[in-house]
């Protein structure tokens, strides 16, 4: 579909549940502070695990959003996702939309892992007859999308995207496509994850993917820093209310900006390692820029995937140099602050990008001090960087070689 033929996509509401805050103001203030929110795990006793810290969403009460039985029938991944979606919807004001024209796209890495793990314990200790009949609807990856649709009575397109750590950006991008192509007028698009669980931590640790900086968890997530040694797993969710641009303008909506471009491709190289030199990631960013009708020079800053693993950050830095040259735009990764929210990360970072454009500030990359010489990119660190509102490239790359890049633009009606 050509840019001329398709509908533009406005972002009119946002909600976030994250280790760095569970409302937009707190979240933004915490990102600007430059501190990291990784800490010892509190939701369960992590003493027997090889890694005992993570980014947890503190003080989350699902009963503020769901009734007793709804909450009991939803895994934490769906509880967090619904809460972020409900906040986004409240933030969007009165949409007055036909429910049949309202859709949901929810990304996740693994779905209801907490429930699955608990029920497997029951299977092994008490037998098959004690496994909950709610296991399937609580663990399935599409449960968050289903819950949001059911609670709101939205009967338009509704699905989940499960592309590991790229799922949040794919969620936003696929949601935008629904509006572009005319399948929906309003879409709640985003992602959620609640995989801070013993099995996930054991498994990621066995891969060597997690930081082992036990002595100082708050220094463990350090994207692009020369001393990075792995990611810090985190949980959370974010949803954005996307609305057909002309509709949003007509009802006088407050518009944060626009989902202007979306690129996605596959490395087709290795199940976990990025393609050498970040060629897949570079091509993905180029696809997003072409989709937006923009040049690399139009981009104000990059909200990087920047996980703090040695491999990702090196490949992504090389990819950015390929796309933007050696004097490319400033780069930030909020994973220093939040940890890596897996299938929620891209959505949380899309929210961040719109907050950054609104404030004219790029949040610093927590814990970054200096990168290796060959990764010559301009990583914002220490203090927020003042920058006139300009389009942002926001990247997510998932195990499996799934890449997603979004071009997010300020609310410029001439765009």
């Amino acid at each position: 579909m050509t840019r001329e033929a398709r509908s533009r996509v406005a972002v009119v509401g946002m909600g976030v549940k994250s280790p760095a805050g569970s409302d937009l103001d707190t979240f933004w203030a915490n990102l600007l502070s430059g501190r990291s929110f990784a800490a010892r795990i509190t939701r369960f006793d992590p003493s027997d695990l090889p890694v005992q810290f993570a980014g947890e969403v503190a003080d989350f009460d699902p009963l503020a959003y769901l009734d007793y039985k709804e909450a009991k029938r939803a895994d934490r991944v769906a509880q967090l996702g619904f809460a972020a979606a409900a906040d986004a919807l409240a933030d969007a004001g009165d949409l007055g939309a036909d429910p049949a024209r309202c859709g949901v796209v929810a990304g996740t890495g693994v779905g209801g892992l907490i429930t699955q793990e608990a029920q497997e314990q029951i299977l092994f200790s008490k037998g098959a007859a004690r496994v909950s009949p709610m296991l399937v609807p609580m663990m399935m990856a599409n449960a968050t999308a289903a819950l949001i649709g059911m609670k709101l009575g939205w009967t338009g397109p509704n699905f989940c995207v499960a592309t590991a750590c790229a799922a949040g950006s794919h969620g936003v991008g696929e949601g935008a496509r629904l509006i572009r192509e005319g399948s929906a007028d309003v879409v709640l698009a985003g992602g959620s994850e609640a995989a801070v669980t013993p099995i996930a931590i054991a498994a990621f640790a066995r891969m060597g993917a997690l930081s082992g900086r036990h002595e100082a968890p708050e220094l463990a997530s350090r994207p692009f820093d020369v001393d990075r040694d792995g990611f810090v797993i985190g949980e959370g969710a974010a949803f954005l209310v996307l609305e057909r641009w002309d509709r949003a303008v007509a009802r006088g909506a407050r518009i944060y900006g626009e989902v202007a471009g979306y690129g996605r491709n596959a490395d087709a190289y290795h199940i976990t390692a990025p393609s050498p030199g970040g060629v897949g990631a570079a091509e993905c960013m180029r696809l997003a820029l072409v989709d937006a009708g923009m040049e690399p020079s139009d981009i104000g800053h990059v909200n990087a995937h920047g996980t703090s693993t040695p491999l990702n950050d090196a490949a992504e830095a090389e990819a950015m140099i390929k796309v933007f040259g050696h004097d490319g735009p400033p780069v930030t990764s909020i994973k220093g602050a939040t940890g890596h929210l897996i299938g929620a990360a891209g959505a949380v970072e899309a929210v961040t990008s719109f907050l950054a454009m609104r404030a004219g500030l790029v949040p610093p990359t927590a814990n970054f001090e200096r990168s290796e010489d060959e990764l010559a990119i301009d990583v914002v660190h220490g203090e927020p960087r003042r920058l006139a509102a300009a389009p942002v490239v926001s990247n997510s790359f998932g195990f499996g070689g799934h890449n997603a890049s979004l071009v997010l633009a300020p609310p410029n009606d001439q765009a």
Partner: protein
Amino acid sequence: MDRATVLEQLTEVAADVLGVDPAIVSESSSFKDDLDADSLDLVEVVMALEERFSISVPEDKLDGITTVGEAIDLVIGIAEPAEPAESANPA
């Protein structure tokens, strides 16, 4: 096992699984209409009773259970199988 004990346990389970006010649970309560319980809820409720009374309820026995009283009958029937009927006229 007396009915009052089973009702008391079932009421606790209903409060936990279904989030209903214990005061509204009685033998005549309909799972669907009064306690807002669907078929998956019923499985969970019965599973919790199996736990509490150390019994095993075959899946097909749940068919036709619509009220709390019927569920109590089911639990008691399994926990205390009726004595074989005595023959009135032993041969």
